[in-house]
């Protein structure tokens, strides 16, 4: 019978094979082709851009260098800054709203099921639908700005999506400096925490790396010039409306994640803490929040990768070619399919992929590692 079982194993593998081949081509093959395209000059010469068999030249990392330091690509750099600010505020907003709602619903108020349904329904909508609705909500002379006047207050004045204000401005040339300080301080914190926890090796490695980075930031960083000219970027206030709409759509998801986590905290544990004299605040701070830490991390990663890919929501709210509210995902589309600068588009896509992979690959690894060991 052994050979029969082996035959079945062969059938099993052969059954999976078509899917594996399809994904190998559609994911890895195409990514490879995109990277290859990003190293050519496809689209630099308009005559070649739309040719059936374009004559392409290998230009190495020229397109990437241009995107990060070329004079005409300031728009890409602002888009990158936009996306990072958007990610921070969107993820923060979703976590805050989601956690608050989950804590309240976990305490079983009256009508819990009703509230849960209300908070989650936007998840079933298309970003295009959400964007269309919120575009109307955020008309500068109507919508949300008119709300106060329905109860007799003066109407709001904020221009929402049409705002041209920029805050939190910084010079692009200081980006390596800020990054070095940020990562250096995080590593410092990790190192100190590890040493206190008795993990000497880990602690000293982290402290050493932190010292290197901070040393660089103090002695070399201030003299680094990425561009021959100062270039100011910042947070465009026009994004606030998009962040509100995105939080409206996705905070229910965060709530569902947290609610599942809170339901997993055993009732005996809460009782035990209360018996030991812990107040409700202490109960949450000392016992429940630490238990929710893995969920927070998962939520941050899932939401973070969604926000790096955000595309349809912004298209529906401000159109496809609106510089103040643009992100790299949209710029890639415009560059490739409207301006026919295909190699530039491929380079932007590759950068986007790297950013997402930076977040997702460690996540997948940690999620699946435990399983394999089991």
């Amino acid at each position, binding site marked *: 019978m052994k050979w029969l079982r082996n035959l079945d194993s062969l059938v099993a593998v052969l*059954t999976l094979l078509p899917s594996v081949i399809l994904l190998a081509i559609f994911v890895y093959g195409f990514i490879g082709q995109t990277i290859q*395209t990003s190293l050519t000059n496809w689209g630099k010469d308009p005559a070649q851009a739309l040719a059936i068999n374009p004559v392409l030249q290998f230009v190495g990392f020229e397109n990437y260098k241009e995107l990060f330091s070329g004079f005409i690509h300031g728009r890409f750099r602002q888009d990158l800054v936009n996306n990072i600010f958007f990610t921070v505020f969107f993820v923060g907003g979703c976590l805050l709203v989601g956690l608050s709602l989950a804590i309240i619903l976990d305490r079983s108020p009256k009508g819990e099921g009703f509230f849960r349904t209300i908070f989650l329904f936007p998840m079933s909508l298309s970003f295009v639908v959400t964007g269309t609705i919120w575009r*109307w909500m955020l008309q500068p002379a109507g919508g949300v700005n008119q709300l106060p006047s329905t109860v007799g207050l003066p109407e709001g004045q904020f221009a929402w999506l049409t705002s041209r204000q920029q805050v939190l401005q910084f010079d692009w040339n200081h980006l390596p400096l800020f990054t070095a300080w940020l990562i250096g301080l995080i590593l410092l914190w990790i190192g100190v925490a590890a040493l206190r926890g008795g993990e000497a090796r880990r602690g000293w490695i982290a402290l050493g790396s932190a010292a290197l980075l901070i040393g660089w930031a103090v002695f070399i960083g201030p003299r680094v010039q990425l561009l021959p000219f100062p270039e100011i970027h910042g947070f465009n206030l026009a994004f606030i409306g998009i962040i509100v709409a995105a939080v*409206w759509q996705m905070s229910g998801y965060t709530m*569902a994640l947290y609610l599942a986590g809170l339901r997993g905290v055993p009732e005996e544990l809460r009782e035990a803490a209360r018996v030991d004299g812990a107040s409700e605040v202490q109960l949450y701070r000392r016992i429940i929040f630490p238990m929710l830490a893995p969920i927070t991390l998962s939520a941050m990663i899932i939401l973070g990768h969604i926000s790096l890919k955000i595309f349809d929501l912004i298209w529906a709210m401000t159109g496809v070619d609106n510089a103040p509210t643009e992100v790299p*995902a949209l710029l890639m589309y415009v560059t490739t399919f409207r301006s026919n600068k295909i190699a530039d588009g491929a380079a932007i896509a590759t950068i986007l992929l790297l950013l997402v992979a930076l977040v997702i690959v460690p996540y997948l690894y940690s999620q699946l590692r435990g399983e394999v060991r089991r």
Partner: protein
Amino acid sequence: MIWRVVQYGILALATLFFLLPVYLVVVTALKEPAAITLESTWQLPRLWYWESFAQAWNAFLPKLQNSFVLTLVGTLLSAILGSINGYVLSKWRFPGANVIFPLMLFGMFIPYQAVLIPLFQFIREIGLGGSLWGLILVHVVYGLPITTLIFRNYYAEIPDELVEASRIDGAGFWGIYRNVIFPLSVPGFVVVIIWQFTQIWNEFLFAVTLVSSPANQPITVALAQLAGGEAVKWNLPMAGALLAALPTLLVYIFLGRYFIRGLLAGSVKG
């Protein structure tokens, strides 16, 4: 006591935040175009005007049909393939499965911009450029990771003893699937079908890039174009948004439990 008041206060505020847009959509869709002004945004319509829905319905009917064909075919194919893949990966673990599965999963997280240029060319080269079938193919392939994941996790709960018993009875690979796995799969299929239905119905990036001819457009693309036009009065986009939202909204309202299960499964471990 104070805590209770605060608690219900927050709930009321949140409910307002989540439902105000719904109120605005419905009210705007029911106003006659001439009565829609920015100052009267929040007022109820003086005259209930149902014409917008008829207009939106007429304009969107072909696109809704496209979306239905696209969604139904794409959902069913990716669900069936996902079920079989999940069966192989959970019950017929072969050497290398631990490497192949994460590599498959990665496909559901990538920004699709990273495959868009070669994909566009590929679909054109195989003669499906601009058609609905090209889009269906794309949705089936990029749906495989999530459907495989959900079924794999679902089948992991089915005891291996059942599979073993069936094998001793002489059942082969497909026999076990037919007699043991498939009959137990209904809840798994419900979760996967709801998830894929929502995803494909709502998708925009592939639709707007790969379907060039307006006749084949799905509803999301048509809605984005309608609302993007500057001259349009807002009653039509709002009625259109309601029509576009209705199928997935109904699924959510009636099968919400399964929808949430799919949602949580998307964070890999579930």
